[in-house]
């Protein structure tokens, strides 16, 4: 897929940051409002896919390789399962334990929500939202990028 016209490219560059911020907002407020890591990640990934469509897969592949994307995805997944493993060591010693909640040693996300939209609540849930968000952004974008690039007819190819 080669790139589209200049108008599309310009509009995509303008829309890209807006969509991305919206998606990141959904990820960050996953434990307070509707949404979460998956939903926000899908929004951000769609903004990345917009860039891919506007500029073409060859250009995008030149900017970012799927190998480095794959590393990011692994990092997101390791962050998620790592948080689950931490539950074994801290807190009540159970896999997937919400060990950050209701303690005073680490002053992050330790409060209990009261419906007042306090972002500093819910223990490991916001952190897991971020890990899953990273994973979903990179994962969906990688799928779209690899499929687009592999089905592109390069120059000199039949």
């Amino acid at each position: 897929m080669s790139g589209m016209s200049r108008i599309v490219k310009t509009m995509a560059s303008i829309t890209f940051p807006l969509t991305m911020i919206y998606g990141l907002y959904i990820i960050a407020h996953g434990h307070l409002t509707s949404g979460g890591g998956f939903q926000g990640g899908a929004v951000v990934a769609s903004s990345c896919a917009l860039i891919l469509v506007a500029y073409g897969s060859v250009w995008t592949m030149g900017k970012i390789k799927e190998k480095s994307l794959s590393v990011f995805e692994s990092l997101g997944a390791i962050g998620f399962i790592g948080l689950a493993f931490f539950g074994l060591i801290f807190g009540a010693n159970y896999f997937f334990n919400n060990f950050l909640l209701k303690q005073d040693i680490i002053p992050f996300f330790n409060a209990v929500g009261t419906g007042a939209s306090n972002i500093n609540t819910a223990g490991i849930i916001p952190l897991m939202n971020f890990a899953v968000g990273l994973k979903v952004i990179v994962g969906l974008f990688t799928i779209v990028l690899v499929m687009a690039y592999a089905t592109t007819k390069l120059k000199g190819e039949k």
Partner: protein
Amino acid sequence: MSIEELFNFLLDHSPALIVAIPLLGAFLTPLVGKINDKVRNAFAILVVAFTSFLVFLLANDILTNNTIRTYVFGAENAGSPIVRILFEVDGFSAYMAIIASILAIAGVIYAWSHMKEHTGQDKFYTLVLLMIAGMFGMILTGDMFNFFVFLEITSIAACALIAFYTNKGKAVDAGFKYIVISSIGALFILFAIGILYSQYNALNMAVIADSITFSFLDKIALVLLISGLAMKAGIVPMHMWLPDAYGRAPASVTVILIGATQASLYGLFRMVFSVYGNVFSSIDVTKDTVINTINSVNSVGWMLIILAILTMLIGALMALKQSNLKRLIAFAALAEVGYMLLGVGVRLASKVSQDITIAGETTTQVAFQGYSATALTGSVFHIMNDALDIGLLFLVAGAIYLVTKETSLNKLGGLARNMKYTTVFFLIGLFAVSGMPPMNGFASKLMIYQSTFQLNPIIAIVAILCSILLLAVFVKVFHSAFLGPKLPSLKDVKEAPKSLLIAMGIIACIIIFIGLFPNLFVENIVTPAANAIMDSAKYITAVI
């Protein structure tokens, strides 16, 4: 922390760790792969070996003490209506986990040399580890929806691995068939889970089993569950993916794929005997559902028997006319699935209600015929035998393909001269799969024949006939591939690489061990597993 404390810690958390460690390994593999190929292969083997160690720790505890272990994710207890996901490991789960771990470790060791020439090995090992994790998840979980999620992990990873040889059209076609059938099966299962959730507002297997009333919606859910899992296990009307997938996948994947298929079969056992245990395995007359449903239990049993007979016949007959070695073994594998299903069918078909007069008072009694326990035990035992025998044969076929680049039987011959160890392993697999007396396959098939004969002699005769057919098929293969004059095109054939021999050796040793001491094995491992699956009340009370 002393050694003993560490062991206890590992044992307490082993149900979670058995799934989590392969997952973590899979996530780390792309990063480890950046270092070096050998480091990555060793890392994968290490992860699987540690998981197997945990499995044996857990299985040892459960099978010797005959207990059920539960593990709740996230908190000490699951809450008063059970809201959290919990893993419930009984004897049967532990038994299946042992099988899965043997197959997994053989497959990963085998892949070291078998996959050497190919690109994309980082992702290959990632997917293999994911498939192993999914298999263990299916086996250990005690939650319906969690079962579905792991089923999907297994089938997606398996699909990508079946189509690994993307330069061959048939491999891609096999992968597509597999993903279509398995995703439709999985969606059936999900729909059934939705029906059960709408009725009982629960997702935990034990909770659903406790409150099941066998209403009309429950029957629909049962049919959907059985058909979905039968699709995934390759039982006859939906068997066409199985020979293709087994035959086209790399041999190291096929071994693990056998484990995945049997995990689906495990799901079938679990749904029928535990989730619907109040209907199918309870003999408690005070539960008024039991008496009324004996007819439907028997008809489900006969339905499964018919499917099993068809599976065996089609598998054995189709194996006769194959000229491709791997496809031939795949059809034999299909036939073996039939034997396992036959035991379940016989168990259900033999449930009776009888009026007994004791001291002038007539009471109604619900019971299973005495032979049905033998049938189920044989069926459970056969799961392990089939996994080992068919796995070994596939590994041999993969080794032959690796050194000769030939799959067609017409182009093979005289391999026994150059591939001595492989020949021995093939002979072991041949005798085992066709149920010859000194090997493990004989013991389990004998149990199935005995019990089936008491239910209906004709079925038993058909089953024996299929077994003889399989023997004939494999003797033909042995003759044409290993004996005879050396073909000129195969002059430079060497023995298979060491890692392949090690993997085949592990499985062959276990086969011979079971064949030599079947009673020891049946008493200590198989009988506790079969008793666990038959005792649905214990499964329920372990949670509630």
